């Protein structure tokens, strides 16, 4: 349980530099061992608009941005106007009294105006520093922590900048100490420093842990963070990183690299994935594994480039013409993204098929704390049945030679030993046309229905075995709960918190999160759901993509649905209220309204 749980909201226009104070706060909290979850609501433009960062911190795990703002720092009037009305008793608003007017404020809200011009010495961007220093003072954080953070962050800009910032921060800190009452609690100090990362960083690091040595991408929000992480670490880690002319080129390029033996990866968003689908079929057909991460955003088409959605499930399910084996996984948070990557790479190497990851803006760009001990890079790298020119085994070539090697050998498992180009004696031509075991085309001279059937079944057979390698979904939380909340991907976190809220109101709820989407644990899930009293499926899209997919695999029809498709993520109370409404029989489809125009 959490003894402290608070959220700071900082809002302004794009270009007002919200990233830095966010960064400072996150690191200060994490260094004290506080758990974090931060979400930045922003628009698709470089300057202007409205950006609102919510940093939530607690001494217990936090899985979402939460329901409220405890400390609001509006950097412009717009933010004040949008958010002030949502502050409740005990909350505080901290603002520049020189440039921003206070609005109607609820009773019990602490109003803390700052004479910003004076404190910041007229430096525009320094307003942020003043504000957070003041905030941290009120939260009982010692000045040294702030000084350390500023030093670290501005070190690159030289000592003078550091000194200036520290001085300005001091002004804010001292002013708050003198003029404002302290917050109604003090930020505790744990003994374990936590690390802070975004999901895109975690995805890239997971790829690195998996041994990725070829990364190609085309920039696309909200996936670009993965490219940027890879690009900036490429040289140190010996990774080939390429920005390609488009996503078609990306997918084909990583398939080429993977075919030679690299571990190859990309990340994109829905529009990029749309362009990759034809080549994904190639990966399936020639049995050359790659991994592609889709950091989903609001669709359709260009849609909402900087807003979240779980709208690409059916696109991924239907990616490319025809049937071919693929593995689809939907990690639930930043750490899950990290640990899933090496596991997925091992699976795709073992089963020689494409691996697809459903991430989204909420977890991809969202920030979370993580125990550094959980970031385990030393996982096993298992390439499956590959034949390299070297190899530690006695027979470096797997016992084959030109006349006995069948690249697409029809084995009982469907898995055929895979030689990489350059191995003497294993020559073959991988072909996207249907082919025989020895890789010759059958679509040309001699289309043979029997060979066709054999090869279709060989490829498909691989998927039967995968299921055994995947952890099956399980019910988490109270047994015999009144309600079971089904989730997939990033929605898992907020449900955990809604379940806590429901428990407080005397409603028992548990959760069934489904992580491995394809192949699907149909039997397990059917059995689990049969035990549940009332099943509600939650997801962030209009059409209930997961609800429909679940039914396609199991025939199961849920009792209720909670969906959101306004670009913003669920807050815990959205789920809690919807569950209560549905238990009361008011509705079976709830579409919570996002209270604030972000």
């Amino acid at each position: 349980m959490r003894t402290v749980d608070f959220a700071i909201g900082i809002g302004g226009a794009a270009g007002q530099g919200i990233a830095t104070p966010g960064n400072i706060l996150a690191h200060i909290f994490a260094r004290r061992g506080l758990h974090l979850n931060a979400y930045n609501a922003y628009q698709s433009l470089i300057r202007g608009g409205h950006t609102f960062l919510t940093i939530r911190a607690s001494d217990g795990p936090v899985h979402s941005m939460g329901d409220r703002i405890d400390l609001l720092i509006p950097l412009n009037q717009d933010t004040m106007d949008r958010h002030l009305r949502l502050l409740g008793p005990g909350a505080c608003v901290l603002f520049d009294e020189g440039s921003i007017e206070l609005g109607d404020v609820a009773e019990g809200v602490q109003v803390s105006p700052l004479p910003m011009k004076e404190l910041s010495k007229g430096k525009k961007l320094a307003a942020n520093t003043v504000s957070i220093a003041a905030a941290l003072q009120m939260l009982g954080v010692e000045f040294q922590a702030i000084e350390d953070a500023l030093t670290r962050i501005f070190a690159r800009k030289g000592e003078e900048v550091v000194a200036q910032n520290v001085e300005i921060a001091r002004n804010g800190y001292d002013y708050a100490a003198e003029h404002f009452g302290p917050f109604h609690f003090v930020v505790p100090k744990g003994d374990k420093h936590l690390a802070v990362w975004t999901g895109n960083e975690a995805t890239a690091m997971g790829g690195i842990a998996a041994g990725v040595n070829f990364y190609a991408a085309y920039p696309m929000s909200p996936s670009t963070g993965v490219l940027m992480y890879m690009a900036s670490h490429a040289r140190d880690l010996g990774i080939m990183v390429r920005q390609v002319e488009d996503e078609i080129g990306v997918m084909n390029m990583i398939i080429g690299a993977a075919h030679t033996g690299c571990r190859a990866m990309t990340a994109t968003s829905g529009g990029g994935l749309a362009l990759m689908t034809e080549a994904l079929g190639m990966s399936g057909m020639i049995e050359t594994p790659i991994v592609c991460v889709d950091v989903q955003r609001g669709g359709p088409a260009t849609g909402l480039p900087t807003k979240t959605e779980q709208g690409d499930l059916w696109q991924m399910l239907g990616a490319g013409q025809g049937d071919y084996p693929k593995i689809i996984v939907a990690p639930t948070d930043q750490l899950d993204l990290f640990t899933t990557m090496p596991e997925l790479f091992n699976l795709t190497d073992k089963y020689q098929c494409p691996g697809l990851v459903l991430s989204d803006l909420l977890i991809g760009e969202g920030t979370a704390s993580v125990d550094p001990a959980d970031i385990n890079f030393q996982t096993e790298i298992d390439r499956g049945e590959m034949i390299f020119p070297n190899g530690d085994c006695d027979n470096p070539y797997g016992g084959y030679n030109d006349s006995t090697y069948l690249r697409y050998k029809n084995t009982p498992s469907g898995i055929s030993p895979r030689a990489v180009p350059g191995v003497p004696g294993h020559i073959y031509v991988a072909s996207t046309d249907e082919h025989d075991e020895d890789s010759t085309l059958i679509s040309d001279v001699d289309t043979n229905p029997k060979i066709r059937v054999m090869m279709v079944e060989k490829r498909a057979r691989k998927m039967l075995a995968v299921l055994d390698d995947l952890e099956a979904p399980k019910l988490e939380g109270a047994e015999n709960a009144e309600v079971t909340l089904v989730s997939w991907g990033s929605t898992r976190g907020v449900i955990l918190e809604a379940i806590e809220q429901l428990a407080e109101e005397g409603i028992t709820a548990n959760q069934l999160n489904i992580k491995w989407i394809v192949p699907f644990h149909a039997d397990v899930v059917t059995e689990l759901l049969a035990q549940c009293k009332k099943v509600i499926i939650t997801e962030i899209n209009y059409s209930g993509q997961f609800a429909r997919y679940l039914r396609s695999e199991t025939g199961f029809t849920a009792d209720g649905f909670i969906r959101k498709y306004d670009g913003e993520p669920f807050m815990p109370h959205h789920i809690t209220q919807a569950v209560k409404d549905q238990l009361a029989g008011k509705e079976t489809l709830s579409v919570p309204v996002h209270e604030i125009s972000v």
Partner: protein
Amino acid sequence: MTTAAPTLPLSAKKPEKDSYKGKVHPDWCPGCGDFSVLAALQKALIELELQPHQVMTISGIGCSSNLPGFINTYGMHTLHGRSLAVASGAALGNHELKIIVTGGDGDGFGIGGNHFMHTMRRNLDLTYLVMDNQIYGLTTGQTSPTSPVGMKTKSTPHGNVENPINPIPLALVGGATYIARGYSGKQKHLVELIKGAIMHKGFSFVDIFSPCVTYNKDNTYKWFAPRVKMLEDENHDTTDFYGSMEKGYKWGDEIPIGLFWKNDKLASLDQLEPVLEEGGPLAYRKLGVSKEQSDKLIAELM
């Protein structure tokens, strides 16, 4: 991690006459120009004393793109238009392979045009052989980006009204560093062009007139034979950019074939990538990061 990886294994054995003979006999129409291109490529590889497992042929989809199935090398028969993108990945994944990309005019200049432009400017170390028959062969005869104006095809029954692409000037501006034009009817000459292309470090492009005897009744052997003139016979300067372009544009009674342009001064992409400086082919390296490296990555988050 870049612990040293082995490089491509070689044996002392030289390739023999039929080392490059494929398992499958080409199913091209009798008389198709592509037979000669295949034979020329096989000869070039033998003469260069390359071993089949060192070589990889990569194609898209089309009659011409069936070539990898007919030659004994590692190969990939990819998607229509995507050969160069796949080959770029392969070339960086294993920069010790000799990669020959083969395909048609539709595959390379139509649907694949953008990869063509960008692969050229990156100067990837690839040899790109286009069997340019000015038609879509495999789909039974539609117009192609190199079909001349007025040509009647199944998709332009009243005659093509779009101006064709001229691949030679395009490649010059695009940044290819070895640019040649060959002709199926001059196989010996073609062998030399292909050898030069393979030996060239950087992006080599050979546009090859390779008549489609079934669907292109305009640009036949008979049409080409009296027209093609070898640049080698006229002392062409392969370092003269504008001179090469002017000759590339020549069309009509005289059509130059041969090596138009060669630039040895530009590094190829693999040479510019520090990651490939040492450690052998990326594809063969040991995967994963050291404890030291991962500690550093974690420290960055603290």
